[in-house]
């Protein structure tokens, strides 16, 4: 009797230790995979930053840490003598992406509210049209716009860059906001009305604070989309209105026939760091916003 119990006990103990070992192994595998992903995602960016701070003569140095550190590349990037004008390009991008975002939000908020909250005929058609619009190839509108804007002398103006940007930022705004709005606890608004709030009060005190994070997240996504745009800007801008993406693609260095890699990496760092910081701070919200339109 006692022998059987002890064998059973030792068996379960053995099984437990096997299970525990298996668990440790599984969690180790998770950590290894996670480390591989993090390194794969960050290593190229790390390399960009290392190169941005390297002296031009050591452009191709393969030392994996910061060596021959200098700030000259940032000077080159902002230098107007070499025609780089990164400062002007940054302001252009800020203005174009900013206006695009604001316009898209003003129109998008109302449409998203209707799509999320109201029942009406043709709702699915509207959703389909908006989703279809966001999938639209940029070249299909840039070709006619190049001629149209050319005829009215708009090439190189800000409106020529903002208007086509709206074509893809507005649909993005609408469907991200729609899925956010659908998840909001709208009953609270009615509860507030029952408790004696006026419509305006209910909107100000209940709906606005509830909707603000959704609108804010959508604004970040819209801004990043507009900020990163290249195709339209490369065709419809001129030297004075070119955006950062175009400026970086056309960068010039001290040597005429040599790709100014260190300066390009410096410019890339300047353009990227604000976005990366923004993304890291609002990571959770951005992930929710990115996937909201597609899955929920």
């Amino acid at each position, binding site marked *: 009797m006692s022998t059987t119990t002890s064998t059973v006990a030792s068996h379960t103990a053995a099984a437990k230790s096997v299970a525990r070992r298996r668990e440790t192994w599984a969690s180790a595998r998770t950590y290894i995979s996670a480390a591989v992903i993090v390194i794969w995602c960050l290593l190229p960016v790390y390399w960009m930053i290392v190169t941005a701070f390297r002296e031009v003569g050591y452009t191709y140095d393969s030392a994996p840490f910061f060596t021959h550190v200098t700030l000259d590349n940032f000077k080159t990037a902002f230098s107007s003598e070499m025609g780089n004008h990164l400062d002007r390009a940054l302001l252009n991008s800020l203005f174009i992406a900013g206006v695009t975002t604001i316009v898209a939000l003003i129109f998008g*908020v109302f*449409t998203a509210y209707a799509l999320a909250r109201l029942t009406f005929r043709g709702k699915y058609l509207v959703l389909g049209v908006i*989703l279809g619009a966001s999938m639209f*190839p940029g*070249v299909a509108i840039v070709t006619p716009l190049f001629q149209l804007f050319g005829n009215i002398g708009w090439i190189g103006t800000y409106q020529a860059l903002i208007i086509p940007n709206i074509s893809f930022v*507005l649909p993005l705004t609408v469907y991200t906001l729609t899925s956010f709005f659908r998840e909001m606890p709208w009953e609270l608004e009615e509860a507030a009305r029952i408790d004696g709030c006026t419509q305006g009060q209910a909107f100000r005190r209940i709906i606005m604070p509830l909707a603000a994070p959704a609108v804010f997240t959508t604004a970040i996504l819209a801004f990043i989309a507009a900020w990163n745009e290249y*195709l339209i800007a490369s065709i419809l801008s001129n030297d004075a209105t070119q955006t950062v993406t175009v400026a970086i693609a056309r960068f010039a260095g001290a040597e005429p026939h040599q790709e100014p890699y260190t300066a*390009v990496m410096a410019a*890339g760092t300047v353009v990227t760091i604000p976005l990366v910081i923004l993304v890291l701070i609002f990571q959770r919200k951005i992930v929710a916003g990115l996937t909201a339109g597609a899955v929920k």
Partner: protein
Amino acid sequence: MSTQLEPGAIPGRKTARKGGANKEVGQDRKEKTQGRAASLLVAPTLIVLAIVILYPVLNAVYMSFQQDEGLDPVTGSFVAGGFAGFANYIHWLFQQCETPTGPASCPPGTLGAQFWSATGVTFFFTVVTVFFETVLGFWMAVIMARAFRGRTVLRAAVLVPWAIPTAVTAKLWFFIFAFDGIANSVFQTDILWTGSQGPAQAAIIIADVWKTTPFMALLILAGLQMIPAEVYEAAKVDGASAWQRFRLITLPLVKPALMVAILFRTLDALRMYDLPAIMTNGANGTTTLSILVVQQIRVGFNAAAALSTITFLIIFIVAFIFVRFLGANAVESASGGAKGKMK
């Protein structure tokens, strides 16, 4: 701004709630009372989209049937524009060019001779990048779905490539793949990455996979998180192996989200422009349809309009096939349809 319009919508909704006794009548009244508010709210967006998308596209279609003005290659005299019928389309689809002896196939190297190769390159890039992005994205999503300390770090890291502008990504990978660059030095190779077809295509594919896999992973992750944990527990109790759980539970349940993610990425890849434009400018077998359109814009925009219309139709057909035959219902999942309710 929103305070002005919002109140108009709210009474409409309240009336609708009252009509809940008879469901069908209520539904009807709801549609009527909310319809007006909805059209007020939706119309501005549709009008804006009509101005910024529909109008240019109709314009492009009109342009595509016009002759490009210019100098006649044979006589050197000025050729006026005017109705051209399907000439621009024939020019691209059959790669026919005007020559002194009448229409003949376009000489190699000219833009006109590149339509089918550009189509091939575009589809090649699309299939390869979307394949790798799906497989790697799935793997990343599975890892991200696990509960472990440091998961926040992983999710934040994954967002970094997504946030970087494609133009910067292109320059960054161009530098990594430079002849004296880090890729050759790490792998002890001396490949001229952007100098010949195979390596140039590989470089672009790697850069694209690096940049967009995170987006794919996050979409798949969102799909994975909608699968209730109890389903896995039940399967475990029933003795299903890890592989069986993956094949019989994860895959079918994540399929709607996965199909939508693949649809999004495919349509995005079909219009690929930034990476090849900056890394190779279309040299060495990397000319995509978008690049060909942009190169043609500088030469003659009516022919470019025909090509952009063809590009648009190709993307439309692919989207149609996805939605119709592969069950990627983007509208339904975006509108919180049956599939989205599985929480």
